[in-house]
């Protein structure tokens, strides 16, 4: 248990590091839960759990320092308990969702602590003390990392038995509805994504993507016997192929747009900085 707790503590601290270092997106469940699985000795389960949790949290993005829910924390703990206790995906989901919400509270608390340090940073610069400024920055950096490490460590050490009891107590019908929920939950993620991207004039592209994903069966050569290729409609267009088509369409849009704005710019004389031109332009449509 000690080893597991150390591993989870390390993964939580690492996830928090990589979440902010270099915008790598590697704190997403699809990657970090796989890493967790490999370290805990359940590589295949880790990868699969990572994919399932990613699907559920697809649309949860932290942007501009605003974190709607701490899905990294939720996914790591949900998956860690599921792997350590040998339970299933449903319990991972059942744990990940509430933990991710609690995680936001913790994050807001940490951010409040950091905010309270701002005047101190300013003071060090005013006192012409760069050394202390730099030290304080490192102190808050390591304080941040250490807090998350300890959180991961302690939750596993102290919480595993309780969580085990909780999972045992989940009645069968709840487990079953969790499975159903896991088939609908990605829709929330996609809806959030859609909300971010939505523009009325671009809506057809969403439906184009949907159509490509839903209707187009592609013929995959499965067996070749005696020179005869047997093709079966095994799979819909894969997302790699759709991404390829998408790139072409997006490139066409970009080129058309550039041409359009070039034409528009030609109408405006480039050296029109004089007062009269700008004022006249202001009243034109």
């Amino acid at each position, binding site marked *: 248990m000690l080893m597991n707790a150390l591993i989870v503590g390390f993964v939580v601290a690492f996830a928090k590091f990589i979440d902010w270092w270099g915008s790598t997106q590697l704190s997403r469940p699809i990657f970090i839960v796989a890493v967790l699985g490999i370290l805990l000795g359940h590589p295949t389960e880790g990868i699969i759990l990572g994919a399932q949790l990613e699907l559920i949290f697809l649309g949860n993005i932290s942007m501009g320092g605003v974190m709607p829910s701490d899905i990294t924390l939720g996914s790591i703990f949900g998956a860690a308990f599921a792997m350590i206790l040998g339970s299933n995906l449903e319990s991972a989901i059942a744990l990940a969702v509430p933990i991710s919400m609690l995680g936001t509270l913790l994050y807001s608390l940490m951010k409040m602590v950091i905010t309270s340090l*701002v*005047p101190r940073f*300013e*003071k060090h*610069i*005013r006192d012409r003390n760069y050394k202390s400024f730099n030290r304080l920055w490192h102190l808050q950096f390591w304080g941040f990392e250490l807090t998350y490490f300890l959180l991961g460590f302690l939750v596993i050490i102290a919480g595993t038995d309780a969580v085990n009891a909780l999972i045992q107590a989940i009645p069968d019908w709840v487990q079953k509805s969790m499975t159903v929920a896991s088939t609908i939950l990605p829709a929330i993620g996609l809806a959030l994504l859609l909300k971010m991207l939505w523009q009325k004039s671009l809506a057809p592209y969403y439906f184009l993507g949907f159509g490509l994903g839903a209707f187009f069966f592609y013929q995959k050569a499965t067996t070749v016997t005696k020179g005869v290729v047997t093709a079966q409609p095994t799979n819909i267009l894969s997302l790699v192929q759709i991404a390829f088509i998408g790139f072409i369409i997006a490139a066409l849009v970009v080129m058309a747009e550039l041409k359009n704005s070039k034409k528009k710019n030609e109408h405006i004389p480039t050296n029109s900085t004089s*007062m009269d031109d*700008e*004022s006249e*332009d*202001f*009243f034109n449509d």
Partner: protein
Amino acid sequence: MISMIRIDDRLVHGQVAVKWSKQLGISRIVVVSDTIPKNEIQVSALKMAAPAGVKVAVLDLDKAVNILNDPRSKDMKILVVTNEPKYVAELLPRLNEKPLLNMANYGRIGGLLSDKKKITETVYLSQEDTICLQSIFDDGYDFNYQPLPDDTAQSLKKLIGG
């Protein structure tokens, strides 16, 4: 017609520009500053940040007064933004109308926060700012503290005073 005059560190940006323009039905934004019109990068950034269908003019004080008092401006809904209270203080007496004033996201750029007084989550005022605002209050105006249209408006005068 001036629908609103807003003081904001970041002038025209993202959600603020989009939401207020939608709420007030804005078709023109006038950015007032004596320094920004000379900086080409700032001008292009501001023009680009404008919501679709809204035209942005970046003008110094005198040109802004001319345009805002132009009879043709009567039929347009104009949002005036600036990042310094002094422009509002100078603008108001020269206008033909008494527009609505608004302030949010001010004071976190330029100068250390420790030197300023925190009024709300997003407004920090230096002593100079307070004196300048006081002169505007003395002329019988008040600012709404209202970052986005969904937020409830609060009187800045009361926030500073209390």
